[in-house]
């Protein structure tokens, strides 16, 4: 095709402006697709903050609240559930496993979570990742604690250190009045970074939570002299009365829904069970408007990129008047002149799209591990998503349409110039 070869040669002739234009479109495409990928990644990562858990169960209340304190360690439960009830569901025939959480204490601003070995065995995030240790091992003794990686890093703790936990979760970090000072915990291990809220908590055995409150009455610390010394407490001697919530895995999908219904109608105690995926989605929708803002910004970047192309094509027309007059004289009609310029702009935007996709690919491959490690954001490396294709198509079409502006101008030039070739 003659026009294609003309367009190609003409673009090649102006290699610097062509390269700059393609680069600026490429960059904006890369930004658009990159943001799209990050958005997909963020949504995915968020939805996979916790995985393989079918139900989160707690005392009746707001479902979002239950999700927030059980998964994100934000806010607090208004009510607990009894340990008996927990054991009832734990031993339910449709239940594969449960992970109990006992919340309410903290250490220098980080939440302390009472749980048992099921947490280390069954807890999953990002689809199939489990809890592992950077150093040490899981807490076995009543007064042992495992640290989330952020906790260890921020506070500079290592295995063997002794720490004191604080009653309550108010920001009164280390204020001291309600510290469980008489019952210090020994760090048994530090968890590997998960880039989820798991990193920002400390994990002690369920018995540990009971043990620090063993001598408390009605939520008040013991009078001086009435404390039960830590040495006297063993896993066997403490009784667990209640927990805050638990994660549950059912044996099959159908069981999940049946269990959810059964739990919320449980006669012994007012309870609720939520499906984390659904509630996470709900939460994402409420905070997701930020991503729309991001998209709007990238759209403007695209527009600027395309305008740059328009400007470069348009300004090149003056130098190309002569070329257009010659083309016209040797028989290229208005249709061909217009097609030539539209084709050029189309080629530029297509090249920009290709460059943009390539850029995203290279950047993703280079930075994916780093981003995943630091932000817990798994940005997928994949061919453009359907949304991505729509963006690419839109840019190509926009390039085509924008090409008509200089094309029309070029055509007008050839009409007014005639054969007197202007310089």
């Amino acid at each position, binding site marked *: 095709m*003659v026009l294609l*070869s*003309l367009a190609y*040669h*003409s673009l*090649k*002739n102006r290699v610097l402006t062509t390269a700059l234009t393609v680069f600026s479109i490429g960059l904006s495409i890369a930004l658009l697709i990159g943001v799209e990928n990050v958005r997909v990644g963020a949504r995915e990562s968020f939805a996979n903050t916790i995985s393989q858990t079918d139900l989160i169960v707690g005392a009746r209340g707001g479902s979002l609240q239950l999700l927030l304190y059980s998964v994100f360690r934000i806010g607090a439960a208004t009510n607990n559930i009894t340990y008996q009830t927990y054991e009832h569901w734990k031993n339910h025939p449709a239940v594969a496993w449960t992970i109990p959480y006992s919340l309410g204490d903290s250490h220098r601003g980080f939440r302390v979570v009472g749980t048992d070995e099921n947490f280390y065995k069954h807890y999953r995030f990002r689809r199939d990742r489990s809890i592992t240790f950077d150093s040490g091992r899981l807490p076995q003794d009543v007064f042992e604690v495992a640290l989330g990686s952020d906790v260890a890093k921020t506070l500079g703790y290592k295995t063997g250190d002794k720490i004191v936990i604080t009653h309550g979760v108010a920001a009164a970090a280390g204020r001291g009045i309600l510290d469980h000072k008489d019952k210090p915990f020994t760090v048994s291990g530090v968890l590997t970074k998960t880039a989820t809220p798991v990193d920002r908590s400390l994990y002690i055995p369920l018995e540990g939570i009971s043990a620090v409150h063993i001598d408390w009455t009605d939520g008040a610390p013991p009078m001086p002299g009435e404390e039960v010394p830590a040495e006297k407490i063993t896993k066997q001697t403490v009784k667990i009365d209640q927990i805050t919530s638990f994660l549950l895995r059912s044996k099959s999908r159908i069981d999940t829904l049946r269990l959810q219904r059964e739990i919320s109608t449980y006669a012994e105690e007012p309870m609720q069970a939520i499906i984390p995926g659904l509630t996470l989605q709900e939460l994402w929708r409420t905070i997701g408007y930020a991503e729309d803002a991001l998209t709007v910004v990238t759209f403007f970047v695209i527009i600027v990129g395309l305008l740059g192309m328009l400007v470069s094509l348009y300004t090149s027309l003056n130098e190309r008047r*002569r*070329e257009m*007059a*010659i*083309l*016209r*004289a*040797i*028989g*290229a*009609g*208005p*249709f*061909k002149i217009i097609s030539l310029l539209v084709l050029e702009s189309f080629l530029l935007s297509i090249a920009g799209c290709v460059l943009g996709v390539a850029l995203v690919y290279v950047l993703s491959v280079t930075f994916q591990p780093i981003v995943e490690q630091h932000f817990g954001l798994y940005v997928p490396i994949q061919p453009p998503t359907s949304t991505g294709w729509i963006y690419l198509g839109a840019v190509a079409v926009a390039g085509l349409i924008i090409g008509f502006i200089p094309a029309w101008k070029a055509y007008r030039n*050839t*009409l*007014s110039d*005639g*054969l*007197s*070739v202007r*310089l």
Partner: protein
Amino acid sequence: MSGTAPAIQLTDVRFAYGKGPTVLDIPSFRVEAKERVFLFGPSGSGKTTLLGVMAGVLAGYSGGVEVLGRDIAKLSGSQRDAFRGSHLGYIFQLFNLIPYLSVMENITLPCRLSAERRARLKGVPLEQGAHAVAQRLGIDELLTKRVTNLSVGQQQRVAAARSLLGTPELIIADEPTSSLDYDHREKFLELLFESCAAAGSTLLFVSHDRSLMHLFDRQLSLPDINRAGA
């Protein structure tokens, strides 16, 4: 009226650029088929403008312009372009070539743009035909070069080769020899005449160089036929 239709027939043609002064006001101008006409006139007298009107590039004139038996005004814009592409060879006064194409690509461009013009090569492969013409004009060594690396005279010969390839019925040349040395001017005209004779083409040749005018069938001074600007 003579037996054959004229190649060019202008009647009462008036033309002005936009709202500017009248540049052309020609009651009658006629070029017979196969005639070789030499047109001259002072700078600014409207020679290039006249060629533009005849080539159907400038619109907005009044009067009748018939080229190769066709009323240009009755053709649509794109028909006019196609007509020019396939039946006319045009050589510009200056700057004739597409800067980003090679010499070969420049020479073959009209034939690639117009299937009709290409058909007139009568089965000779495009590149081969281009090579033959280029050889006659002494530019066959330059075929693969970039046109921006040519001397002005070389560029004019490339433009000539382009207008001759596929021998169109009407060749319009706007001072094509202004940058050629004596030898090349001779060769160029020789080839031009030969090609025109072989293909039965009409030649309208604009030049300041009156030393060439005796070679033509007829010599015309534009101010003599143009009432405007007189």
